[in-house]
């Protein structure tokens, strides 16, 4: 049997951490893009679009992320679409992230007083100009803290990709545990790395939240 020193364990975990970070980034960028489109669609006030988005949000918020990942990975394979573990993980995390972000942003946009829209309208701004110059700059400030706060959930959510066989931090931890039989040590390292990833995010979120509350 191969011997694993602490150094070997940490080195292997850190290599896998790169995938966790990459997966988180992909999911967050994908989620932001989808959420932007959905937010724009929602703002048209078209009842059909609004209804569909509401349904979308309910489905992805109301079911476990693990099931969504299973459905993406095994479900799509069943219907003949061969999808890699990476793609399935990115796809399901993107959908999951977008559903939460669109809801967070809805709150931020809706807290803008109706008078901001009316004043823009009276000044002759079009719908898109109002979004671009009046609504989004204000909503962005409000949305920043909760969005970054939510990114912590995305990072933690990537751990589930281990279940469909994608080798990221958690999966690497499991594999190292099988090889070393030192679960406490290995998973303590894993937890520590997750904490190191998440803590700066939640801290940033808290600081921004405070800053925003003060400036109001």
């Amino acid at each position, binding site marked *: 049997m191969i011997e694993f020193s602490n150094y070997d364990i940490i080195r292997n975990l850190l290599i896998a951490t790169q995938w966790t970070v990459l997966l988180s980034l992909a999911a967050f960028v994908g989620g932001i893009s989808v959420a932007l489109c959905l937010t724009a669609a929602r703002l048209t006030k078209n009842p059909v679009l609004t209804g569909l988005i509401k349904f979308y949000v309910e489905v992805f918020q109301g079911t476990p992320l693990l099931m969504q990942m299973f459905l993406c990975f095994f479900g799509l394979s069943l219907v003949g679409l061969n999808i890699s573990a990476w793609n399935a993980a990115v796809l399901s995390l993107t959908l999951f992230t977008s559903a939460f972000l669109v809801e967070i942003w809805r709150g931020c946009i809706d807290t803008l*007083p109706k*008078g*901001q829209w*009316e*004043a823009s*309208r*009276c*000044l*002759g*701004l*079009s*719908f898109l*100009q109002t979004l671009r*110059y*009046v609504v989004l*700059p*204000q909503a962005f*400030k409000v949305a920043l803290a909760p969005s970054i706060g939510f990114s912590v959930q995305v990072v933690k959510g990537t751990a589930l990709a281990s279940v469909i066989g994608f080798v990221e931090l958690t999966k690497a931890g499991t594999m190292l545990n099988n090889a070393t039989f030192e679960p406490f040590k290995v998973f303590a390292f894993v937890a520590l790395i997750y904490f190191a990833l998440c803590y700066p995010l939640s801290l940033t979120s808290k600081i921004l939240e405070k800053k925003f509350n003060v400036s109001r």
Partner: protein
Amino acid sequence: MSLVNIHEVHKYYGDLHVLKGINLNIKAGEVISIIGRSGSGKSTLLRCMNGLEKYQKGGITVDGKEVTTEEIQVRILARSVGMIFQSFNLFPHLTVGENIMLAPTIVLKKSKQEAQETAKAMLEKVGLADKFDSFPEKLSGGQQQRVAIARALAMNPKVLLCDEITSALDPELVGDVLKVLEQLAKEGMTLVLVTHEMNFARDVGDRVVFMHQGKVWEEGPAKEVFANPQTDELKNFVNSVL
């Protein structure tokens, strides 16, 4: 021909009949005060005049343009009609100068320099020349409302609609805003004011429109309407507020 033409306008909120056949013509340069009890439809009428609210029957034209709530039409109208709100509605993320310059640059496509000159001139007019770079939250209510007036004026409107624009202000700040309005009236601006400032309506206004239960109940030259109300409803109203 009058600047604003309101003909047999009816407005419903669901089953609620809010405007019941309004007729009103406003000439260029006139100062009209709309008075009446809460719920009589004053704000609704004003908001119908620039396409913020839909009306179901009748017709409104301003400066020869038909008033509808279609975005395209509202944008055309915005060049003729300015509106000031009770709650100021300044854009809090922009400085005073940027607030005033926004619409002239992106709607009228003025150059930044030209827009800036206009903005400074308008701020001068409302007595806030030194506040160009301040953010709205640093200003008093009265100052914010004067910035809102400057912002509307920068679009060079033919008529200014004001919905109780002094009602949210501390009493000692009301005077500054009224002074600006009076100055505008002197310069020949057409003003339509929904107001509870009866003294102002009487002394500065040309004509007073008393609304009651969704109708123009009584109207006439400002001094006459207050001195010699014809209907019991207006008599009661005048007694209750003066």
